């Protein structure tokens, strides 16, 4: 590997030291395990970027992480469109997460689709004292009456539920019978686990226990039936993805959970193959389907033409030559679009340095999309990744890349200040501080209200957006001209 293919390890090690020096001793010791520089020539720890992950955040340092409720309601369950999702507990959790993940769907809101609604039991003091089960029972009746075309109801637990000893499973069982539609209790109280991640897992388990084990789907499995798993259809991501799969001859019988109906979830065990995009949030249910229903699963990546082509071939290799042939045709069909996008944007983006800090997938998954545009990831980190995510990360990144797990506000700000990248991709909480420092920024959770970014159609938008962030004229005007000298 030539030096050009590496990031500046020594520089990054220095700034890690500098940052850690600012912490009290105990916190510095804890945080030191989460900051590192990728070095593939060293045996120890190299396969997982050498950082600890999925452990408790240090109190008081301004972690960017969320909670299990966010992982379940916000990520996994919330997008299932024909179900009502109750934010069970006080009003806030549902209010702040209301319509914020841009999980697109088709349907009529409030009639047969409910994604952009905030439904809550709005706990009051008496619920804390006397418990919320009785009211939950009654609330389920009320909702069924007001939304008769809903196909199921999920109960997303907020912090108090687990603390006051409510038995929402018992309520769910009873109402399941009474209402004749699935009622799914989810124990995703925000204090469980260390981040959104446990919420994903709990939500996956709820699909297993309350959808697969309690419902059955009539379905004649065809030779090319697949599920598209863990695409949340942010800004419509799952749709260009679906197009590619259909164009290569596959039949997508379930789309999880962006734009999903309950029927699509119930039918999933009938598929031949599971295709998983966000490994972090839905690997659990894929493993379960593999064990119980013998359905293999394949990880794929639809960010950027290199990974899309690689993924299409990888997916096709699971099927016969017809599909493999069609996959090649699909890749060829879109090549002119890719060429045109690269011709337009690569000259404007080549050599630009990028820092990322996102959730559990994108810090690695988008790396090659940037690479396709000639951009270089100099630092990346996850909010809630596990060791297996960091293992997968080294494949994508260069030696010398700065790695920061569960970064604190302080660390991220200092890293940006020292590295001065040409672009930072992170979330709304990080956006404005970064931009004020004069560093271009794109939100990489919500696509900054743009998207889709998946698939070839999405890559064009991705390239356009990165270009408009970096090459906007605003960055040159920050200093008043009388101060500029």
């Amino acid at each position, binding site marked *: 590997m030539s030096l050009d293919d590496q990031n500046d390890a020594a520089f990054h090690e220095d700034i890690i030291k500098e940052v850690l020096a*600012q912490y009290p001793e105990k*916190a510095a010791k804890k945080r030191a395990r989460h900051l590192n520089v990728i070095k593939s020539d060293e045996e120890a720890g190299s396969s997982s970027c050498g950082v600890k992950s999925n452990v*408790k955040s240090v*109190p*008081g*340092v*301004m972690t*960017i*992480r*969320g*909670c299990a*409720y966010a992982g379940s309601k916000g990520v996994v369950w919330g997008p299932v469109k024909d179900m009502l999702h109750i934010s069970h507990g*006080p*009003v*806030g959790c549902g*209010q*702040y997460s209301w319509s914020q993940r841009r999980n*697109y769907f*088709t349907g009529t809101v*409030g*009639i047969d689709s409910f994604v*952009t609604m*905030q439904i*809550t039991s*709005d*706990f009051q*003091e008496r619920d804390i004292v006397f418990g919320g089960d009785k009211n939950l029972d*009654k*609330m389920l009746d*009320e*909702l069924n*009456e*007001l939304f008769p*075309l809903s196909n199921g109801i999920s109960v997303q637990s907020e*912090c*108090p539920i687990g*603390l006051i000893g409510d038995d929402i499973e018992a309520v769910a069982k009873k109402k399941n019978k009474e209402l004749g539609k699935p009622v799914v209790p989810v124990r995703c109280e925000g*204090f469980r686990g*260390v981040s959104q991640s446990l919420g994903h897992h709990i939500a996956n388990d709820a699909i297993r226990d309350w959808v697969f084990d309690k419902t059955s789907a009539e379905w004649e499995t065809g030779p090319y039936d697949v599920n598209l798993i863990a695409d949340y259809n942010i*800004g*419509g991501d799952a*749709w260009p993805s*679906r*197009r590619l799969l259909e164009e290569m001859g596959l039949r*997508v019988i379930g*789309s999880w959970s962006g734009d999903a*109906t309950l029927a699509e979830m119930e039918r999933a065990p009938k598929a031949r193959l599971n295709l998983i995009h966000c490994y972090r949030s839905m690997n659990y249910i894929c493993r379960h389907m593999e064990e119980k229903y013998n359905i293999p699963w394949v990880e794929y990546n639809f960010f950027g033409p290199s990974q899309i082509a690689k993924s299409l071939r990888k997916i096709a290799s699971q099927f016969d030559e017809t599909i493999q042939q069609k996959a090649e045709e699909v890749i060829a069909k879109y090549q002119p679009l890719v060429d*045109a*996008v690269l011709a337009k944007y690569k000259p404007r983006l080549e050599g630009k340095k990028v820092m990322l800090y996102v959730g559990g997938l994108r810090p690695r998954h988008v790396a090659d999309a940037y690479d396709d545009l000639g951009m270089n990831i100099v630092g990346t980190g996850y909010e809630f990744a596990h060791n297996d995510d960091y293992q997968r990360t080294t494949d994508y990144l260069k030696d010398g890349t700065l790695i920061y797990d569960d970064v604190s506000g302080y660390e991220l700000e200092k890293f940006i200040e020292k590295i001065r990248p040409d672009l930072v991709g992170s*979330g709304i*909480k990080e956006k*404005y*501080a970064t*931009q*004020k*420092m004069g560093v271009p920024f794109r939100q990489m959770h919500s696509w900054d209200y743009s*998207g889709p970014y998946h698939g070839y159609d999405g890559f*064009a938008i991705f390239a356009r957006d990165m270009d408009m962030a970096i090459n906007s004229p605003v960055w040159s005007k*920050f200093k*008043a001209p009388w101060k500029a000298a």
Partner: protein
Amino acid sequence: MPQSADKIKDHISLFKEPEYQELFASKKAQFECRHSDEAVAAQAEYTKGWEYREKNFARQIAVINPAKACQPLGAVFAAAGFEGTLPYVHGSQGCVAYFRSHLARHFKEAVPIVADSMTEDAAVFGGLTNIVEGLQNAYTLYNPKMIVVSTTCMAEVIGDDLSAFIATAKEKGSVPGDFPVPFAHTPSFVGSHVVGYDNQMKGILNYFWDREAGERKAGAPNGKLNIIPGFDGYAVANNRELKRYLDVMGVDYTLLGDVSDIYDTPSDGEYRMYDGGTTLDETRDAINAKATLSLQEFCSLKTLEYVKDKGQAVASLNYPMGISGTDALLMKISELSGKPIPDSLEKERGRLMDAITDSQAWLHGKKFALFGDPDFTLGMTAFLLDMGCEPTHVLCTNGSAEWEAKVKALLASSPFGAAGQVWRGKDLWHLRSLLFTEPVDFLIGSSYGKYLEKDTGIPLIRLTFPIFDRHHHHRFPTLGYQGGLRVLVEILDRVFEVADASSDISYDLTR
């Protein structure tokens, strides 16, 4: 091929392309198992009627699309208005991620708040370790002048005692003994963000007035007027406008909790984690003020009671907007400070009156539904009545019985309020039924109202927090005569847009 490099289509136009329309149709037909289009259309129609409205209003537990947030959101907002202050939330970390995102989406600003990240072990053993470690880390890393602590519902359910915990943390040296750490218990299962604001404001005053150096009584009067703005999405511009008035009147004042700088920092290459805010010295000295005036009664009930107990005159208004609201504000400031209202402000008043007079024919008798916080809905109703508009539905998810009585009295004070109905503790799904069964011309509220606009076709005018889908509204005032002018123009613009959009023969050049 729907996409091209020449003219890149994003979600706004891409999905209208035939390839995607076909995809939607085929997914729906083959895989979704949705109810039939007829069933959906029938139910959609049914939800517009009186029968559905009655069912909707019969629910007792389910809350659907509420227009309120929880206590700690108000608490961190109140804390952010003080110099060098880091809001700190004791409890689950996810809540803090939400508060920060929620405020950032509205203000388009960084919103630094720390959590002490309590998890399952803290649920069992309490969060003392978290606060001891958390305060030390926050203090060392972020170098604040003050850390203000509020709580999430998790810490409240397990009963953590902030006073004792903070004292222990200080004993253990997490922060210096004399370092200000005011606190408030802010359970999200009591009240809403306006109560959280009140609790935290009281907690801050209580720290400086009673806890920092023992119980204090008002000393030598400093001749100042304290003003508490309350939870206000327009605070950036409104606080500045308020300060302009006070300066013009020559009133010596302390704005208690002023976020106008921290939620409006410049882009010049430097990120300011702290900027502006009420100084700690001013806050200490505020006990010696002549009087304390709250601009939002329902954001300051407990705080004003506390201030009153300290021997100060107190007064409150309900989000003074427009003519009568601003008149009341200026007269109250004049009364409490002893300073006359200068001619220059009277002239501003005259200009707003002039504008309303010019446009009143377009406003007279127009029916409005409005929703929002208790004080906002009161202030907005008053201004609508000033202009000859008819507030038809006034809805407040977090309104109290006192609020209801006040709105009713206000409506009763004007013939334009005669048909007004007041909806306390109701949500936006209730409002949907109201708008279908008893429609209005315009809807006033926050961005959440856009779903109502889409369903009912009634144009939404965004005039209160949160505004996520329009930029920079909060950078212009709604308070005072200038703010009144701006609110007037926003309403008029929608009135004229509607007139133009629905005119054919009468598509007039001049209106």
